């Protein structure tokens, strides 16, 4: 499968103001790609939750946003990276109820449900990298 990755935007996540900035870039990118207002909102929500996760568990990190193309479909990729302690047990972290926000269906499990693709790479002590993609064709707000 051929995947083309476009121009990148990176935002250092070190506080609430950075979250706003990452959301702004993500929303602009989504609307630029022709996503609906609802879909752009879901992208901003995913960015909020990923950034919140970075601040909460690693203190700081970065969020990278880029357009992506695969077999004629356009999408938006969010890459969240940190050098924190890593998620010791990724499977558990993905369960609803592992964290307080998870209990409400928010947090990482929530992001997985909003996005079309979701992948966590994490090693204890080795930081965490989360890749999430929203495709345009997958539907208005699906």
């Amino acid at each position: 499968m051929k995947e083309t990755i476009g121009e990148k935007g990176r935002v250092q996540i070190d506080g609430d103001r950075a979250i706003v900035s990452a959301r702004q870039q993500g929303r602009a990118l989504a609307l630029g790609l022709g996503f609906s207002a609802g879909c752009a909102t879901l992208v901003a929500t995913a960015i909020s939750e990923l950034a919140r996760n970075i601040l909460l568990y690693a203190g700081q990190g970065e969020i990278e946003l880029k357009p992506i193309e695969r077999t004629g479909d356009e999408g938006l990729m969010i890459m969240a990276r940190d050098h924190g302690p890593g998620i010791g047990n990724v499977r558990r972290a993905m369960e609803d109820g592992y964290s307080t926000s998870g209990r409400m269906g928010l947090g990482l499990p929530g992001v997985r449900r909003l996005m079309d693709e979701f992948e966590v790479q994490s090693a204890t002590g080795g930081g965490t990298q989360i890749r999430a993609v929203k495709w345009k064709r997958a539907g208005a707000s699906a």
Partner: protein
Amino acid sequence: MSTLEAELEARCATALREHLDGAGESSLNAAYELGRDALSRGFGILDFTAILHAALAEVVFSAEPGHGREVVGRAQAFLLECYSPFEMAHRGAREANAALRRLDEVREAEARRLARELHDEAGQMLAAAHLTLREAAAELGLHAYQPLARVHDHLRKAEWELRRIAHEMRPSMLDDLGLGPALEFLAKGISARHGLVVRIEGALETRLAHDVETALYRVAQEAFNNAAKHAGAREVRLSVSLAADRLRLSVADDGRGFDARSVANGKSGSGLGLAGIRERLEPLGGSLKVRSAPGKGTVLIIDLPIAMEEHAARFAG
């Protein structure tokens, strides 16, 4: 209005004003955090909507004359942000519902396997016992007739019990013949064991979706057991009716009844397996109503949607 609601509404109105003044992403972020807060503080979507509506009305009415339309138009992005956390939670609930449904399927498949094993394995042993008994009867002659006849009776009873247990664990009849025959067999077993008169009536000849038939069978099983064991009923009446795209099943008994309100409020525990019945129905979008009062018997009314394509197939076939 509680202080918490008043606080949320004030925050909401402030953020909305900032949004309309062109604050951009920071006010949208504030809207998102507002929704997240409301969700984590246990606000339901209706309460939260009332708060949003009050804040929107406040801002619209204080806008300059003629600007109301513009305010409402620009509020869209703000409202979407407010609701986004609820969307996430909603998707979580939908996923959990699907998982619950799969769990029920796994549970039924396991019960089906156990029931078949019980029926086949133990059935073979009983058949062997009958053979041996016949041989023994031939060898021992007439003077052993009476004790051997008693053994024979015990074996017959064991066979019947085995068949009943296997059936109630997972009636193969349900898969092969459908809900009507499976319920008739269940009723016979309950009558024999508890001396309860069970009447079954209504639209039971049509085949329904597999998971719907299973759920209804389990619900009936629980209801019959309640009537016999807890309610001390003498008679229980089950009836099924089909409307365009809904199925209604009611189970009424003449037992001692209970205070339905206190059970509904969870004050006397979920007891009576009513919680189990609700859990069965929820993944299928069904609901349970309970009507009961001390001394007045109990009526369970189950309402279940039936998919349109099944409906079409039913009426075509």
